């Protein structure tokens, strides 16, 4: 009788370990996949930028420094490796692009040509996709990190060769800054 109970307990523990192990591995793969998603979107952004610069170059000739900053930031981002460095370079590229878009507002003729509007929509969408891919990556990575650090899943973390992964932190102060939203309705503080 005692042997039977022991057997049941052992089987239950083994089954649970298999389940926890599989969950960790599945999370690990999800993290890798989410990272790949970011990569796909970043590559797309890098491909779009020369297009955009070429299109606006003629009309914005005297904004040369801004255009050069965009190209420089892009080239730096293309060559970045690792989570930290990529995050930093891409953040800078986002800022350079933001300045460029702000400047295009001053050229109504430029916006009127469908080409630029279309490119801008493409880049806006790509920016959004990068943001959403980053969000998915951070969510999945947090879940993975939490799972391997909390009891009882941490017991099988070693077997699953789980190691904490880096989150994609927002680097620039301006990006991190939450826009000041006034909800006081006509009573500015």
């Amino acid at each position, binding site marked *: 009788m005692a042997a039977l109970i022991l057997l049941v307990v052992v089987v239950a523990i083994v089954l649970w370990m298999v389940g926890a192990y599989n969950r960790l591995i599945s999370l690990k793969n*999800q993290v890798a*996949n*989410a990272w790949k*998603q970011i990569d796909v*979107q970043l590559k797309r952004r890098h491909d779009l930028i020369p297009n955009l610069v070429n299109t606006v170059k003629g009309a914005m000739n005297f904004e040369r420094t801004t255009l050069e900053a965009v190209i420089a930031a892009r080239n730096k981002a293309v060559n970045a490796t690792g989570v930290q460095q990529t995050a930093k370079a891409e953040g800078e590229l986002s800022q350079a692009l933001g300045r460029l878009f702000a400047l295009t507002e001053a050229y109504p003729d430029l916006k009127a040509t*469908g080409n630029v*509007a*279309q490119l801008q*929509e*493409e880049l*806006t*969408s790509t920016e*959004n*996709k990068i943001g*959403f*891919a980053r*969000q*998915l990556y951070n*969510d*999945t990575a*947090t*879940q993975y990190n*939490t799972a391997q650090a909390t009891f009882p899943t941490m017991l099988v973390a070693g077997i699953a060769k789980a190691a904490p992964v880096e989150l994609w932190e*927002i680097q620039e*102060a301006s990006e*991190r*800054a*939450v826009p000041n939203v006034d909800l006081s309705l006509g009573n500015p503080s």
Partner: protein
Amino acid sequence: MSEPVGLFAQQEANRRRSTWLVAGFILFFAWVGFGGDVAFYLLTADAPPGSYHHVVPAIGIVTTLVAAGICWYSWRFGAQRVLWSTGAREVTEPATPEERQLVNVVEEMAVASGQPKPRVWIVPDDDPNAFATGREAATASVAVTEGLLRTLSRDELQGVVAHEMAHVRNLDIRLMTLLAGIVGAIALMSDGMGRMIRGSRMGGRGLSTGSRGRSGGKGGNPLALVVLVLWLLTLVVAPIVSRILAMAVSRKREYLADATGAQFTRNPMALASALEKLAAAAAPTRAVTRGAAHLCIVDPSPGLLSDKQGFLADTLASHPPIRERIARLQAMAYGGTATPVEPAEPLPG
């Protein structure tokens, strides 16, 4: 923590419910068929030798096969049928800026939800509405009406598409699409059976007078009557029950899809303001037929019940009251439950 712990549970529940739905549907058809066989068997059991004896359960076999066929058809072609019935056209090569934007927004939400990009369709209808259909994420379709594209801003469109992607990811689409096929089939069958019974009452006099003669003499077979009454009752009740089932199944999922969608965009207010606009456009979505109503983001033909709460509205409306949905989304926005981004460290400067 942002990732819903219940995602796998949610998908699993929807898989299980889909199986139950199919099993229940086939069992119901089997009951209708074999129950009829039993009733006829009992009615003809003590008929004089030489007259008709119902021994082979032919009706049961036929109805069960038909049910299995309908399920297979709904599984295989349900999504195509739904799209076809709305007259949707697929956007493969976006031609206009609006189409370009729609495709981009769908791609964004596919990235945010971590799902493959679904196929994108536009329904030629002026009333703003949207739905998702399909069997699984890899073959899913998201459709919006032309009215929706015209009415909503980019952010609002994103909110609506996020809601639909939530249905895709939670596998609601599988259950809903199966339901659309099955509800339609039951309605059709009930109509047909009703016609047949009325027809047999007028034409097939021989059988009923025969059994009545016997029952007058020997007290009849009460079991046969019970089975017959039960059988007829199911035929009458089935279409109503199946419709209520479809509505109940979809109502719960709307709140969940709103919340999951808000989690994708981290912008619940955009969906809330989109719902405001959809509610304000009261015109019915004519392209969407009754059988597919529960797939849409807002009730395509809002009736008296759509703004009410309470038992009756809870049972009969296909969607929860839109005011309540907006209120919940606003609560998320102000309460911060749907923006699980970790609070930034104290700002420099």
